[in-house]
């Protein structure tokens, strides 16, 4: 009798596990497929064979520049930024148990963006220094929001509200700095207001890869504690999680990854906010959402950038596309969350 129910339980667990991995695998395949598409189909079509030869380092007349210099850096950066936003966003959402508590709403993204604009326009910084500056500023903002919202312990709702206030202030700082820029271009301003992968260079990928390994690794190593936190702080503590220590690790990891990406692409609108809930809709809430959400983030940025370049009349930076696409989903999400009062 007991062994019968035991087998049913094992079988059910394995079935759900297999379904989870199938769906994650499907996402991975989709990311690779769109990646390949963006490499070979743009203003002109490059045959897949030529793309492959360029990737292997051969010099193919006509393709080496388009694929190697224009499309590849752009696609690589889109994937890396998407992974970062998806991973960092969902970590925040799970930690605070509120899909609306994503870094783009509580001020982390605008903090990193303001720091990047400040460093580039007013301090004349370039390259990796900007990333470091943005990460430090992002952590500073996170610390500020966390500190301002802690009174007899941090309450999630207060943290979100404080974040909204801080975010509003930082956005006006960005607006001010941009208005001070000597050579003001709308395209460049767009990057810091809504995010863009225009003019990507392959060298920019390195700090992002580094950030993904260090901060992403930190987040993934905490994934079990994060899962326990979803049951409520008290339940997590009862299960042996050091709630405050875990929170700090998650904040460092998520802020680090988000700020590094923001320093290069700007705060790509809604990607951090949308990836988690979309991933939850697809794979369910039975397993950790970190990796599915990162993949969804990569998909959103890749597809959004592609659509902004080639599928829409005129050329839009990816942030405008994800922003406009995200709006209806966002409203649906708010309505649904309000109705059920539930988590992701």
């Amino acid at each position, binding site marked *: 009798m*007991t062994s019968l*129910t*035991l087998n*049913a*339980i*094992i079988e*059910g*667990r394995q079935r*759900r596990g297999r379904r989870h991995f199938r769906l994650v695998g499907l996402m991975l395949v989709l990311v690779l497929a769109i990646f390949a598409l963006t490499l070979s189909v743009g203003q002109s079509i490059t045959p897949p064979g030529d793309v492959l030869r360029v990737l292997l380092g051969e010099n193919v007349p006509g393709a080496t520049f388009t694929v190697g210099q224009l499309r590849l850096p752009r696609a690589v950066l889109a994937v890396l930024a998407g992974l970062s936003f998806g991973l960092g966003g969902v970590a925040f959402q799970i930690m605070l*148990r509120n899909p609306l508590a994503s870094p783009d709403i509580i001020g982390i993204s605008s903090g990193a963006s303001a720091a990047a604009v400040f460093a580039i326009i007013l301090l004349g910084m370039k390259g990796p220094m900007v990333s470091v500056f943005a990460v430090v500023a992002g952590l500073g903002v996170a610390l500020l929001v966390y500190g301002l919202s802690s*009174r*007899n*312990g941090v309450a999630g709702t207060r943290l979100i509200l404080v974040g909204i206030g801080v975010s509003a202030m930082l956005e006006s700082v960005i607006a001010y700095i941009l208005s001070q820029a000597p050579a003001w271009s709308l395209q460049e301003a767009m990057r810091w207001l809504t995010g863009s992968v225009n003019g990507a260079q392959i060298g920019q990928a390195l700090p992002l890869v580094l950030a993904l390994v260090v901060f992403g690794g930190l987040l993934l*190593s905490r994934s*079990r504690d994060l*899962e*326990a936190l*979803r*049951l*409520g702080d*008290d*339940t997590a*503590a*009862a*299960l*042996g*999680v*050091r709630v405050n220590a875990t929170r700090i690790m998650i904040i460092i990891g998520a802020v680090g990854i988000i700020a590094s990406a923001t320093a290069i692409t700007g705060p790509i609108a809604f990607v951090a906010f949308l990836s988690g809930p979309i991933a*939850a809709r697809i794979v*369910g*809430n*039975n*397993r950790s959402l970190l990796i599915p959400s990162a993949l969804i983030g990569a998909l959103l940025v890749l597809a959004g950038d592609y659509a902004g370049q080639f599928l829409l009349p005129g050329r839009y930076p990816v942030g405008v596309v994800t922003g406009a696409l995200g709006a209806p989903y966002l409203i649906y999400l708010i309505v649904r969350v309000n109705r*059920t009062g*539930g*988590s*992701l």
Partner: protein
Amino acid sequence: MTVHTLTASGLSAGYGETEILNDLDLAIPPGKITVIVGANACGKSTLLRTMSRLLTPHRGQVLLDGKSIHKTPPRELARTLGLLPQSPIAPEGITVADLVSRGRHPHQNLFSRWTRKDDEAVDVALTATKTVELADRPVDELSGGQRQRIWIAMALAQETEVLLLDEPTTFLDISHQVEVLDLLTDLNHSRGTTVVMVLHDLNLAARYADHLVTMTEGRIHVSGRPEDVLTEATVRHVFGLESRIIIDPTSGRPIMLPIGRHRMATGQDVKEDQP
């Protein structure tokens, strides 16, 4: 099964500056069901939260087997001492089996894989709470009573020998309240689990407790066998209420009947002070 002792000594605790528990001493009898009752805001939940490490005491300590729980590594503690908080949160769409599996958290670490032992613990927990047939259902679809059994199953999967519960019967109707309390009594009898819970209903508390603890103003008022503790004098002191105590013919336990100002069968209603 080893017998664990849980005691609090000289405990003062609260939120921020405000002190809710005030130099409190308490010993939980091992292997028994202890129920804590008291008026609103007397510190029942604070006591439970401090005894389960959710709250750090200002002064004094909580000892599990003679060792301060606030100095024990949390994961180690969570293998002996479990807590079901008042309002745990179920992620949307999670299935019963997966939620109950979360109770295995303290038994795992970063690199360990899910083992047969974990599956067995889940199986035992589901069987004990009679929720095996719900295993593949999403938790959202369940009724309040079923959901409470799932949460208890999660706490069971944790395989702790001491289990603390903060008002496990709130929001349940009376039949489900009795069902949950019967279930906890089964566990206590079959496994010898030490159960400590806060309850609102004085009569259910007297009915199910081996050891009844009453609290006022952050201190223990009296504790002991329900028959000895639940008296008209205790109710007057703890709740500020006049009452009569009779004996339940079914269980032989005391029952508290409140005396209000109206509906006196014996004569006139008691009038409020006339001007």
